[in-house]
């Protein structure tokens, strides 16, 4: 039986390895996780603010507050299909809880997200705002919800992809669709009244809206929080169900 200490070290060592293998160095990985959403923010700013003249104040800040948390979810899920494949050599050799591998990927992207919060703070100051005290409990709460949701989704995607190797393509299309269905580059208030309920059928919506309101206004809506939490549990349950059904076959198909 593995001890708690072993589990802890397994997670830290695998997370470190993941970082090194994916980005060659941790500094580069961090730069990537900051530069990527910033670049997108820039593009959307040009497209929507300058060209289409969207009627919104502080649009850049608005974009950034939503794009950073999205970056975490998006990167984790898009890289999920390759997770088990990239670790086939250890899966075929040692019997260990394989769900630790997607967990470390998600944790690594979470660390990058945490490290990018100072960038968001920088933009707050540019727009003459300040971080709020509510971040102290708001950030841990939303982190937990997003961690569960992202882990569940990554577990689901990575397990299925072992058996259907073209699942990866489907996921990259799906994630783009979800991105545009989530109020990230537009506020939910712009969505026509009749369609607004539909927006909340998207599991990412309550989460991203909560992050943005927390970052910009320091507010946390309990209803959105509860909804996000419920969705995250659905992801976790679905991920685990599929993982438990398939995991004993992993070594056969790798």
């Amino acid at each position, binding site marked *: 039986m*593995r*001890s708690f*200490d*072993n589990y802890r*070290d*397994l997670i*830290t*060592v*695998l997370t470190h*390895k993941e970082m*090194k*293998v994916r980005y060659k160095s941790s500094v580069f990985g961090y730069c990537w996780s900051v530069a990527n959403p910033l670049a997108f923010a820039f593009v959307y700013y040009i497209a929507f603010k300058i060209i289409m003249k969207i009627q919104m104040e502080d649009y850049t800040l608005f974009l950034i507050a939503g794009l950073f948390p999205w970056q975490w979810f998006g990167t984790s899920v898009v890289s999920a299909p390759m997770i088990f494949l990239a670790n086939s*050599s*250890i*899966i*075929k*050799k*040692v*019997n*260990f809880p394989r769900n630790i591998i997607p967990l470390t990927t998600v944790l690594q992207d979470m660390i990058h997200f945490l490290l990018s919060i100072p960038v968001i703070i920088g933009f707050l100051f540019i727009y003459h705002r300040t971080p709020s005290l509510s971040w102290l409990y708001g950030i841990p709460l939303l982190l937990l919800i997003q961690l569960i949701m992202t882990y569940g989704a990554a577990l689901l995607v990575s397990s299925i992809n072992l*058996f*259907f*190797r*073209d*699942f990866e393509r*489907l996921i990259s299309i799906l994630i783009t669709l979800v991105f545009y269905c989530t109020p990230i580059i537009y506020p939910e208030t712009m969505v026509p009244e009749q369609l607004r309920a539909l927006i909340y059928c998207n599991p990412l919506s309550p989460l991203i809206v909560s992050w943005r309101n927390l970052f910009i206004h320091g507010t946390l809506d309990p209803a959105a929080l509860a909804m996000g939490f419920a969705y995250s549990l659905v992801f976790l349950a679905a991920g685990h169900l599929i993982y438990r059904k398939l995991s*004993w*076959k992993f*070594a*056969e*198909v790798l």
Partner: protein
Amino acid sequence: MNNEQVIIFDAVSKSYPLYHHITGGFKNFLFHFPRAVSQMKNHQYEALHEISFQVCRGETFGIIGKNGAGKSTALGLIAGVLKPSKGTISVKGRVSALLELGSGFNAELTGRENIVLNGVLLGLTRVEVMHKMEEIIEFSGLGQFIDQPLRTYSTGMMMRLGFSVVSSLDPEILLIDEVFAVGDMEFQKKCMDKLESFKKGGVTIVYVSHGMQTILQTCDRVIWIENHRVRMIGSAQEVVSSYVDAGL
């Protein structure tokens, strides 16, 4: 040697579904759904058929047979990375495996980082691995290469690292899958000496090899697998001589 059985295979069969129908892709699966499902059920390849044997604590147990006989499958089942399709397997003790070359390693990490990775995968804590680090590096004889990424290693160097790791981390049950052949003479000798000291120390060893000489030297008992079935189990002397007589 006492008689406590630490590995028990009871009428174990292992079938591999021919997964390529599915790994052919999701699209393929959806568009040929009925056929894909029936293929999944019917197209099975039986790699082991009703295999039974027991290994006692401290014993060195050899597995011989032709390529594709199912030897590596048997080791995978002992290691717990594969599940039997039928029958039961019981394994008591921590299993350290030296399977295919490079298994358990990551090509981008250095030798040193791979040692830590392997250690925690085998169930140790990082501190425990660190305590053994110098001993492992010393045994491997890799010198300065230990801080190079693994993709620069030759197969022999990879084997050196693999064996040094599993052998330094107090194995209880050691699985070895025909890997020694790639090491140089000097290191092969070192491995054999180490195996000898494990035998004295009461470590259970399951050893797959095509080298009949080493099988004779190291193993107490041997199983001969042919056509995915047990052809013979017995003392190393007995089984190896029949195997050689059969002209294989």
